[in-house]
């Protein structure tokens, strides 16, 4: 075991982690621990764009953007945070441009902008062009640009280091962050990083679903590490299902495709979104479009022999436009489906895409231990966190924005904190949890296999807690997850070695997914209403009287070592906008 000491440690090198690192490195001795090489992070997969009311191509302002974000989130958004997001968006985009990001340009040479779902002029009047983009590679360009600037600033990376535990020490009755424990993939060695400030920027957790746009590595490690140490998780029942994933594979086809004029059609060729969202049509918010697609499918208007998908039709768009604006997604259709998007519509289905919930933070990125108390020295930003700027449903292009705005904020706040704070003493045997976990898995002779359990988990999640949920389906999922967690105790790995043991790490990642899936299902069961991405067929309406509040889930451990979930709630911050019915 090795011990390292840094002022600031950042967990994750995606957009949020690297944006934080650029700030933190300038101000404090910083280490970035990342399980992937930075440029492999899933921010690179983002396609469509990043929202900011630059007003480069038509009238726009940050107040409209704030309103759209709040309405898009079905009023579960903390309005003070949404206002910060929309206001700071403009500088966030300009910062990236100055760092070198090659945005698409207008004829005037300014940053070009395009339409995206849920973004409107003047509080819902008509779609507005607010998404700043680089073809359909915006995330790739953000990730590359941030990495380039990390190279420039000399950011120190520990690549292929998996953070597996959060260290917390109680000082005078206050829980403080003392550091993290990481596992080095290349050697199997365990490292303790003592740090004055820790920032989680470890991304999402979509891999508990089968059909998902998320990478194999998005397994919620950061959320799970904090949750296991008694910290709450907020709004985990809210998961976004993006309308246009490639049928069966889940690979994303950006909403920018509809922003450019693409149309969803059922088996009769009907543009069905006109029925469900007369104004915004195909560009209504994602939860609305995903439910509409499944309604079409359920009512027998789905496409294909099994009627289990619909089409994204781009055939009426000029090939030059597709080549210039959507080169990557059209190539995905060619590579993975053998379809030519110039002439043939693309089979799609909703795909599990984005975790609105996560580690609760305030607008400085400080992690909360309950509804109000901050954990000194602990920060989170990006998809791992819940500020909450996305509420019950995130608007497209608001996450690339979130990682930049709150990544920067967390980086500055953490470094400023570590400039004056003292190190917190490490707990006794700081590495013991990880050591035991690794040893147990390596030595286990149990008969259960990781891949089997993971597949069963993904199948139950897809079947029971996806776009449509009921008390019964969620209960089925809760029971299944409990069974899988039980069987997980009996899991073993074949690779017993130390070197690049990805077999072992997949087992650990599965443990995280199981814990988080349970939190999601239990939180969803208790929310007896429909709001944003959480749709209960048995409670089809939003219920502001009882549920205009954030869920806070805590892990409780009984004397016999058995754990359970305790749910609590936190009020939503409302400033200017009163909840209204959401219509698109």
């Amino acid at each position: 075991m090795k011990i390292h000491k840094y002022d600031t440690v950042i967990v994750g090198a995606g957009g949020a982690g690297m944006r934080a690192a650029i700030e933190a490195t300038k101000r404090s001795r910083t280490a970035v621990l990342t399980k992937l090489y930075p440029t492999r992070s899933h921010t690179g997969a983002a396609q469509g764009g990043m929202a900011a009311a630059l007003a480069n191509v038509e009238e726009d302002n940050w107040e409209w953007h704030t309103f759209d974000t709040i309405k898009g989130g079905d009023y579960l958004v903390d309005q003070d945070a949404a206002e910060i997001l929309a206001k700071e968006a403009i500088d966030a985009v300009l910062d990236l441009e100055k760092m070198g990001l090659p945005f698409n340009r207008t004829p005037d040479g300014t940053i070009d902008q395009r339409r995206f779902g849920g973004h409107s002029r003047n509080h819902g009047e008509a779609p507005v062009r607010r998404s700043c983009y680089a073809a359909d590679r915006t995330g790739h360009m953000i990730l590359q640009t941030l990495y380039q600037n990390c190279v420039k600033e000399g950011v120190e990376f520990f690549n292929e280091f998996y953070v597996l535990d959060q260290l917390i020490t109680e000082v005078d009755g206050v829980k403080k962050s003392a550091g993290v424990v990481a596992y080095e993939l290349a050697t199997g060695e365990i490292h303790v990083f003592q740090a004055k400030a820790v920032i989680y920027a470890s991304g999402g957790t979509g891999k508990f679903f089968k059909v998902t746009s998320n990478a194999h590595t998005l397994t919620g490690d950061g959320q799970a590490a904090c949750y296991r140490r008694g910290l709450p998780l907020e709004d985990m029942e809210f998961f976004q299902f993006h309308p246009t994933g490639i049928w069966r594979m889940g690979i994303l086809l950006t909403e920018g495709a509809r922003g450019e004029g693409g149309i969803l059609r059922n088996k009769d060729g009907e543009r069905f979104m006109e029925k469900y969202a007369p104004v915004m049509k195909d560009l209504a918010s994602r939860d609305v479009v995903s439910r509409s697609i499944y309604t079409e499918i359920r009512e027998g208007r789905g496409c294909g022999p099994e009627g289990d998908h619909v089409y994204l039709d781009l055939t009426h768009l000029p090939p030059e436009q597709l080549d210039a604006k959507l080169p990557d997604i059209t190539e995905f259709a060619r590579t993975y489906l053998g379809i030519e998007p110039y002439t043939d519509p693309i089979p799609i289905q909703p795909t599990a895409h984005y975790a609105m919930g996560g580690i609760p933070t305030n607008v400085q990125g400080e992690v909360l231990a309950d509804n109000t108390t901050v954990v000194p020295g602990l920060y989170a930003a990006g998809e791992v966190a819940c500020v909450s700027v996305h509420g019950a449903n995130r608007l497209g292009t608001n996450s690339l924005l979130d990682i930049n705005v709150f990544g920067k904020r967390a980086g500055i706040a953490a470094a400023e904190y570590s400039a004056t704070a003292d190190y917190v003493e490490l707990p006794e045997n700081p590495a013991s949890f990880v050591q035991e976990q690794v040893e147990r898995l390596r030595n286990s002779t149990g008969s259960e296999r990781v891949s089997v359990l993971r597949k069963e988990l993904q199948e139950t999640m897809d079947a029971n807690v996806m776009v449509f949920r009921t008390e019964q389906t969620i209960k089925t999922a809760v029971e299944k997850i409990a069974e899988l967690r039980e069987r997980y105790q009996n899991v073993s790995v074949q690779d017993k070695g130390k070197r690049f043991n990805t077999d072992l790490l997949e087992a650990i990642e599965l443990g995280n997914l199981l814990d988080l899936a349970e939190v999601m299902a239990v939180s969803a069961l208790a929310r007896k209403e429909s709001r944003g991405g959480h749709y209960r067929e048995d409670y089809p309406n939003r219920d502001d009287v009882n549920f205009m509040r954030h869920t806070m889930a805590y892990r409780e451990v009984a004397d016999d070592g058995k754990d359970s979930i305790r749910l609590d709630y936190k009020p939503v911050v409302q400033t200017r906008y009163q909840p209204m019915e959401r219509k698109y």
Partner: protein
Amino acid sequence: MATPTMDKVAADDAAAASHLITVTFRIRRFNPEVSAEATWEDFQLEIDPKERVLDGLHKIKWELDGSLTFRRSCAHGICGSDAMRINGKNRLACKTLIKDINPAKPITVEPIKGLTVLKDLVVDMEPFFQAYRDVMPFLVTTGNEPTRERLQSAEDRERFDDTTKCILCAACTSSCPVFWNDGQYFGPAAIVNAHRFIFDSRDEAGEQRLEILNDKDGVWRCRTTFNCTDACPRGIEVTKAIQEVKRALITRRY
């Protein structure tokens, strides 16, 4: 509107009612914890030919041999984790469909060449990233920052579009015979990333980057074999980019 195209797709869907085939994966295995020697190992699996080579590797890892080791993340050709030699050619396992590489014969899978193999298909990427870092892969500007964005015409933006697509997978560099013989050579990927900035109208460090690449291990080592262009999973015209850098060195115009 039952358009002809929709009918056609429906017919294709029906035909696609998937049928599995038996495929042999012949994989180069190496684990220094077990043996100092690398060996070939065959695995047979039933798989839908429309699946990716990566799906085949996962099937082996998840069902047959958990110790098989490779890197991967996004599974759709964006993150650059899984460049490997498949049937003797550098490709991304997640972007190569089994049906496209003659599954009637064993499919050979080896690590990319020219970088030290650490375990199975995992190689040491550090020298590759070091070469990248050495070409100053970041925008350099002088003078006062503008308050708004820097302006750039659509044509100027287009000038370096191709080389912005790089995902640093190393498929190009590890397909280059010059790089195999001499690991000191910067390699195509580093030059591509230098190109991305040299031809960006906003950048002011073109001269410095050109000097770095004028080095004995720089662009002049390129023998224009086009392996790199063939290998690039992003369709970047790598050789052309290298030629443009060479020309810029001669003319000092870019």
